[in-house]
């Protein structure tokens, strides 16, 4: 038995007993052996989920759908998607001979980490959710990420499950000559639009450079597109979602009605990708409906805290995600206050310019009363809002706990929007503040 592995496992079990998860075991493992992940003996089913948005939710739904099909599954359910998080997840589930004890491993993997660990993880299936501009300073340009993924899939022989409605993602299909390619797609809904003010990427055909034609947009550049010159975008989806009903959060695939856990188009896409995985793996798709119905969004994703009035927190990390969160907030009836935590640590991305690519002008709505800006770059956020004519409603409160106290004392429904590294601490403050109301 490996002394290193047992040390890592001991660290994990001690930390778990102390009520702490964290990435320390993975840090230890990779310090002692940089090839730690490669040494792991994994089950036949290794499903990796990557892309810009929806990785955590999608991979958790896939893991649950596999469990509902009777498989034992190991997954990084908290979204620890870098090397150390993956090493921690695998080490904690392995025996002393590096055998991971499960029928399947489902991992969400950061786009750059995927490039480094793809061969070490020996995936049987790769799911790509979408490609948006995200944390550009850390990753180089989105284009670089796509090129790296194209390189990865060139000799990939497993199941490649792609969002057929994202032209950036579809580029992988052209490169994957050995993989079994499966597409998921969502047909036009009542909320689809024929024009988009959000479509930053994918305006041009990646094959010939001429403009792509969209028959409809779902959100951002996601929608039904085609190139009239070379037929790029003319796909035959394996899973085609139709009849999306946003009132009952339900949709149809091949005559079966499913119910989504969240009332949004991106939730529908999450579900569609899960059904495509089930189909590719020969699992029972109807088992997934139970998962969809009962899935509880992860921490910090539509999570509600009972302050003097309900306070909902959502994670944002890039323009597309922020746009969707703002749409959701404005769909909620009644007056509300909003608090935005903008950080610029490593995991957030050092460059906060992405806030200028997001449609913060949407907050210029009469129901939005005050917007509190906090975090490490509160004045950058305040400036962004100022240039949308929101100056009079903007308030900077640098201290996170004072910002939350202000929301509580304002006695109005509120929404907290937080970048990644502010999420955990902000949730802790919200939990404490909510606790005061329970006494």
């Amino acid at each position: 038995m490996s002394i290193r592995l047992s040390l890592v496992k001991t660290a994990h079990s001690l930390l778990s007993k102390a009520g702490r998860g964290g990435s320390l075991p993975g840090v230890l493992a990779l310090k002692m052996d940089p090839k730690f992940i490669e040494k792991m003996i994994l089950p036949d089913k290794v499903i990796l989920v990557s892309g810009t948005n929806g990785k955590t939710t999608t991979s958790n739904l896939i893991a649950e759908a596999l469990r509902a099909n009777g498989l034992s599954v190991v997954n990084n359910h908290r979204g620890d998607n870098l090397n150390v998080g993956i090493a921690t997840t695998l080490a904690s589930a392995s025996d002393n001979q590096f055998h991971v004890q499960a029928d399947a491993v489902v991992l969400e993997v950061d786009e750059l980490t995927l490039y480094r660990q793809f061969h070490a993880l020996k995936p049987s299936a790769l799911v790509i959710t979408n490609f948006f501009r995200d944390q550009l300073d850390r990753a180089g340009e989105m284009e670089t990420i796509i090129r790296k993924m194209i390189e990865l899939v060139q000799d990939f022989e497993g199941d490649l499950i792609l969002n057929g409605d994202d032209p950036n993602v579809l580029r992988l299909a052209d490169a994957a000559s050995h993989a079994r390619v499966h597409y998921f797609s969502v047909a036009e809904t009542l909320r689809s639009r024929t024009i988009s003010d959000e479509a930053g990427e994918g305006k041009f055909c990646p094959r010939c450079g001429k403009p792509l034609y969209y028959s409809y947009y779902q959100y951002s550049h996601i929608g039904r597109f085609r190139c009239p010159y070379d037929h790029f975008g003319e796909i035959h989806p394996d899973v085609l979602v139709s009849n999306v009903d946003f009132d009952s959060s339900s949709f149809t695939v091949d005559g079966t009605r499913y119910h989504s856990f969240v009332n949004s188009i991106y939730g529908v896409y999450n579900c569609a990708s899960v059904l495509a995985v089930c189909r590719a793996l020969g699992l029972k798709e109807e088992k997934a409906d139970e998962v969809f119905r009962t899935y509880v969004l992860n921490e910090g994703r539509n999570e509600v805290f009972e302050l003097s009035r309900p306070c909902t927190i959502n994670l944002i990390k890039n323009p597309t995600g922020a746009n969707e969160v703002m749409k959701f907030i404005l769909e909620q009836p009644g007056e509300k206050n909003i608090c935005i935590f903008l950080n610029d640590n490593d995991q957030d991305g050092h460059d906060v310019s992405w806030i200028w690519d997001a449609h913060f002008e949407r907050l210029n709505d009469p129901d939005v009363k005050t917007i509190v800006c906090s975090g490490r770059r509160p004045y950058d956020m305040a400036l962004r809002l100022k240039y949308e004519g929101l100056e009079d409603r903007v308030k900077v409160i640098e201290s996170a706990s004072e910002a939350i106290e202000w929301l509580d004392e304002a006695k109005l429904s509120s929404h907290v929007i937080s970048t990644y590294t502010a999420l955990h601490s902000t949730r802790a403050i919200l939990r404490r503040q909510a606790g005061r109301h329970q006494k």
Partner: protein
Amino acid sequence: MILNILWMYHDLMDLYGDKGNLQVLKTRAEKRGIDVNLVTCGIGEPCSIKDYDIFFLGGGADREQNLIQEDLLSRRAEIEEAMNNQTAFLLICGGYQMFGKFYRDQDGTTVPGLAFFDYYTEASSRDNRCIGNIAIEVTMGGETFQAVGFENHGGQTKGVTTPLGKVLKGHGNQYQSGYEGFVNEQVVATYMHGPLLPKNPGIADLVLKRGLRRTYGDVNLKGLDDTFETRARETMLKRLGVLK
């Protein structure tokens, strides 16, 4: 007063929130009672460049930059006319590079620029991409002040004799170089995103004055409440150790 602003290739050259620069120019002009006519121009669209007071061209990813290359070069004579007509230019990143002599990529292929100025750009090796927060000391229009931004470029721009500013922290035109950007009486060109203007209203107002000058002569712009702007800039200057 009316200010005519041309936003070139708005649909392609819009990286890192560069469109924020236009929101700033527009808002700061309107707060001074100046009407703003903001017009966009895409590939193949006819537009009379010389009729505009301010010409804005932002940055794009390599792919987008290649797409506009030919169209931009085909407009060289019109742009030259605008230069002779006292149009003010604000060029960011890719826009900055394309006004120089050429861009030489990693394979040694040379892409010609508009060649209005003598500077040129060469792709860097992977290790010296200039990424991070940057602070510079700008000297422009007889004023000297500090400006902040975020740089993210592989291209190393050489042969600039009149930089926009001295680097206080960060890289500038080349990896660990001492100077950033290019400036003359008409043109402000820089690698600084952020976007550039929201946190640096000093630069914004100078660009506005230059734009107004050709029709209205030297215009005095009344001061605005720049509390957020100043705080945002100072947050970064302190972080970078430039401001104690």
